């Protein structure tokens, strides 16, 4: 093995026993043999990597891919089923911060106990305790019991202890979300400092930006195997691309589910309506004229409000209404997640309720979740004529490249008369999310390139 290598992981695998219904008592074990059945769920199949002294690596992957398990194996909380892990030097894990805290003991006592769990002697702790308190910025509260701390203070104290121990190898699981933004920045800077001093760091995080900032290499773990490794930016691009595909799949299923639910509800409502109509007819026949009029009024009141409600929740005169808005991807699948520069189509189902002389326009607008209007247009501006005859129709809005940058967006749809008065205005008719493997910022991704030339 190379002398510089401080972490060497060779072909490790790990299975977890998943008990179908575990009985840990003797009685249960004897009486219900079948309860002890378990499945072996392989979490890590074959992972190998090595880290040199002073390097920082990041482990990325979706939930359940095995990255946290890898880290747990590194900390030696668990052991691999096969393969070998060799580590040189003192290992400190920032995994479950404050796990050893005792709520009734003061902050200072907890520092002592927590540091002792990391294997420090009393003298070593004595030397560090002031630094730890100073770093945590909890001087005022340090002699109060930790149960009186806020959760932010709690993690701050725990992080301060862990990071103050002179580790040769630092293992970190998703903990840079400590305290407020200011304290986070401080922790992050401290981490960089520690790295500069030659500490080897392994980070598991969903915050790819943080990994890119601090790590030299990234490993993408997928279903227990290393799918890709290399420069963080490159690995993360592949990973994000995969995630985008995956999430689109999930979102498409959800849209389908919602749609079938909606159709079922509509059907039910129609049936109920028909029944109500039938009932009122029956009533008509049975009741005397005076009361039958009243009955008709009642049934009328029962049916009408739904339509009225729909209109009153919106703006507009209701002469034309929007029935349904759905967004599709290039494969003609209804979707709520799109990648930047995807081809999309928005289908707007409308119903013209009453004829009027005026032409109508269909308007669509996209807003970012913070309310910024990103783009809006309508058929009148574009000179596209919408047929105004009574009945249901569908208008499609197609975009070749939807170049919004990542984030949540909502869509407003409106029907307007030529004179500008509103027939129907549906705000937040549809919300969707944009994802992107690139890291540019702003609202749109501009199609761009860079060039340089030097002046002679």
């Amino acid at each position: 093995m190379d002398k510089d290598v401080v972490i060497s992981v060779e072909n490790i695998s790990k299975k977890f026993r998943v008990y179908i219904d575990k009985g840990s008592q003797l009685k249960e074990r004897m009486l219900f043999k079948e309860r002890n059945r378990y499945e072996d769920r392989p979490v890590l199949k074959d992972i190998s990597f090595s880290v040199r002294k002073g390097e920082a690596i990041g482990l990325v992957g979706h939930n359940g891919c095995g990255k946290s398990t890898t880290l747990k194996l590194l900390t030696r909380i668990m052991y691999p089923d096969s393969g070998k892990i060799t580590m040189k030097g003192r290992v400190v894990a920032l995994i479950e911060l404050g796990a050893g805290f005792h709520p009734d003991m003061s902050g200072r006592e907890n520092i002592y106990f927590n540091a002792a769990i990391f294997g420090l002697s009393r003298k070593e702790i004595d030397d560090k305790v002031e630094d730890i308190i100073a770093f945590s910025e909890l001087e005022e509260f340090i002699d109060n019991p930790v149960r009186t701390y806020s959760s932010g203070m709690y993690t701050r104290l725990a992080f301060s202890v862990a990071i103050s121990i002179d580790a040769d190898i630092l293992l970190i699981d998703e903990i840079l979300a400590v305290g407020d933004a200011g304290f986070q920045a401080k922790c992050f800077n401290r981490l960089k400092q520690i790295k500069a001093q030659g500490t080897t760091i392994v980070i598991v995080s969903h915050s790819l930006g943080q990994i890119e900032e601090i790590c030299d290499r990234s490993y993408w773990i997928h279903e227990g195997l290393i799918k890709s490794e290399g420069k963080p930016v490159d690995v993360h691009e592949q990973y994000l691309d995969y995630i985008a595909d995956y999430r689109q799949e999930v979102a498409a299923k959800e849209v389908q589910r919602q749609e079938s639910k909606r159709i079922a509800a509509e059907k039910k409502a129609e049936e109920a309506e028909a029944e109500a109509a039938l009932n009122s007819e029956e009533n008509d026949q049975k009741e005397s004229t005076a009361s039958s009029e009243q009955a008709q009024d009642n049934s009328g009141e029962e049916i009408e409000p739904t339509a009225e409600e729909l209109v009153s929740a919106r703006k507009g005169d209701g002469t034309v209404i929007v029935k349904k808005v759905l967004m599709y991807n290039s494969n003609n699948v209804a979707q709520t997640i799109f990648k930047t520069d995807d081809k999309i189509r928005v289908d707007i189902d409308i119903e013209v309720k009453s004829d009027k002389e005026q032409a109508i326009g269909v308007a669509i607008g996209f807003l970012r979740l913070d309310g910024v209007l990103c783009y809006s247009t309508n058929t009148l501006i574009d000179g596209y004529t919408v047929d105004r005859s009574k009945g249901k129709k569908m208008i499609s809005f197609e975009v070749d490249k939807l170049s919004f940058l990542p984030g949540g967006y909502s869509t407003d749809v409106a029907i307007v008369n030529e004179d500008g008065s509103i027939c129907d205005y549906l705000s937040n008719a549809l919300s969707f999310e944009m994802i992107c493997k690139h890291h540019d910022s702003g609202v749109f991704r501009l199609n761009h390139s860079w060039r340089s030339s030097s002046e002679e």
Partner: protein
Amino acid sequence: MIKEIYAYREMIFSMVQKDLRGRYKGSFLGFLWTFINPLLQLLVYNLVFSIILRSGVDKYYLFLFVALIPWIFFSSAITGGSVSVIAQKDLVKKIYFPNEVIPISYVTSCFVNMLLGFVVVIGVVIYSGVHISPLALLCLPVVMIVEYFLALGIAMITSAVTVYFRDLEHILTIIAMAWMYITPVVYDIEICPTEYRWIMHINPMTSVIIAFRDILYYGRVPEMMTLLEAVVLGVVFLLIGCLVFRKLKRRFAEEL
């Protein structure tokens, strides 16, 4: 392994401290229970064995007491020790540290409790007027350490096995009770019929208790054979305990 546990001595120290402080926390008499509890037990056994079941042993209260205090240490170490790892499952699952620290701390805190109990024992010995040779007194720490090893070795086994098999906790309370009666705690080994004496001798606690009684009741240096037997058994059990624990601790985080 010893080196690593040494590195974690501060943790052991803190845990023992926490345990001792926490043991009687919130109770009215607090720390006094360390003394009251053995005295009351002594009272009960003494009533039973010198009034109802007359044993005919001279100064029975002393005869019993010098064996009872070490026995209470041993039995609480193995029964309480069995759940010590489970009780610390949050730590075991979340942080790496040599897990041996847990049974070590628990048994150590029981041991400290016994030492405090010995304050009372010494008081009773002085009250009884028994003369103890200085050489015999020198053997006392040796016997205590041997018993500590023995208790630790067994507690390591019980604490590790209980993680996988929780019933052991309850089974152990029965075992501890039965064990007390196959150990000459409340009676003299001479009472036991010779044909059953072998049961006593495969019991590692027999020689320990006999040694304690030799020193504090008869005031004499224990027989070399008794002492040697105790030392060997203590070391053997500690080694077995360490091996079993090391093997079983690998899956602690998953089982807990």
